[in-house]
C-alpha cells in the first residue's frame, strides 16, 4: 500500500538523513585530527552508500521484524574513501578549508532533506486536520 504516509521518498529521505549524520561525524573526525601526525582524512562515498543500502540490514544484527527500527551501526569501511596523499611532512592529509566546505555542504544537504520530510509530515497533518 502506498499513500502520503508511507511512500518511498519518505523512506529514502530518512535513510539519506542518517547518512548525512554519519558523514558529519566523519568530517568532524577529520577536523579534530587536523594536527595529529599521520592521520588520513576520510570521507563517505555516497555512490558506494547507494550500493550499500540494499544490503545494509544484512549485518550482524539482522532485523527479524520489518517493524523494528533499522540499526544505526558504525559506518561500513567499504563506503569510506581515505585520502592517502599528504602534502605535509608529518603525513597528515587533512585539508582544513576542504573539510569546512564539506561541513557546510553536508549541513545544507541535511537541512534540505529535513525540509522534504517536514513537507511530507505537513501533508499528513493537513489530511488529518483539514485546512
Amino acid at each position: 500500500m502506498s499513500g502520503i504516509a508511507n511512500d518511498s521518498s519518505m523512506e529514502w529521505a530518512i535513510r539519506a538523513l542518517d547518512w548525512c549524520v554519519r558523514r558529519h561525524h566523519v568530517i568532524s573526525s577529520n577536523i579534530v585530527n587536523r594536527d595529529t601526525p599521520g592521520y588520513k582524512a576520510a570521507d563517505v562515498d555516497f555512490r558506494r552508500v547507494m550500493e550499500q543500502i540494499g544490503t545494509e540490514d544484512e549485518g550482524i544484527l539482522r532485523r527479524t521484524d520489518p517493524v523494528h527500527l533499522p540499526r544505526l551501526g558504525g559506518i561500513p569501511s567499504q563506503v569510506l574513501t581515505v585520502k592517502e596523499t599528504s602534502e605535509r611532512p608529518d603525513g597528515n592529509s587533512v585539508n582544513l578549508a576542504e573539510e569546512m566546505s564539506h561541513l557546510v555542504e553536508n549541513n545544507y544537504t541535511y537541512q534540505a532533506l529535513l525540509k522534504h520530510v517536514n513537507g511530507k509530515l505537513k501533508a499528513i497533518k493537513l489530511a488529518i486536520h483539514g485546512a
Partner: protein
Amino acid sequence: MGLYDGFRISVSGMDAQIRRMRLIASNLANANSTRSTTGETYRRKDIVFAAVPLESGGRIQIGGGDGLRKVTTVGVADDPRPFRRLHMPGHPDADAQGFVEFPNVEVFEETVNMMEAVRSYEANLMAFHTSKEMMKRALETWR
C-alpha cells in the same frame, strides 16, 4: 552512533587545543628561564596528539573501522634541539667558560603555533555548532 557523537568528537578537539595552548603559554613564559625543576635549563615542550577510535559509550559497537576518530593527547615531548648559548660571564648560571644556556624556545615559532591552535579550536567549534544546528533542526520537525 547517534547525533551526540558529533559533540563528543568536537569537544575532544577543543580540549586538546586548550592543552596545546597551555603548553605554548608555558614555553613563552619560560623563554628565558635558565633553571627548572630538573636543575637544567627549561626545555621547550611540545604536545603529542593521537587519533583514537570514539568509544561506544556502553553501546554495542557494530563492525570496526567506522572512520570516527576523536583526538587525545598522549603526552608531552621535550624538544631535543640545542639550547641557545650566550656569553654572559656575570650570570649566576654561567659555566666555566662564561656561557649561559638559554631555553630553545623561539618566540616567533610559538606565536605561529598559537595561531594554529586558535584556528583548529575555531574549526572544531564550528563543527560543534553545526552538530547543534542539525540536532535543533531535527527537533523542529513536525512544527
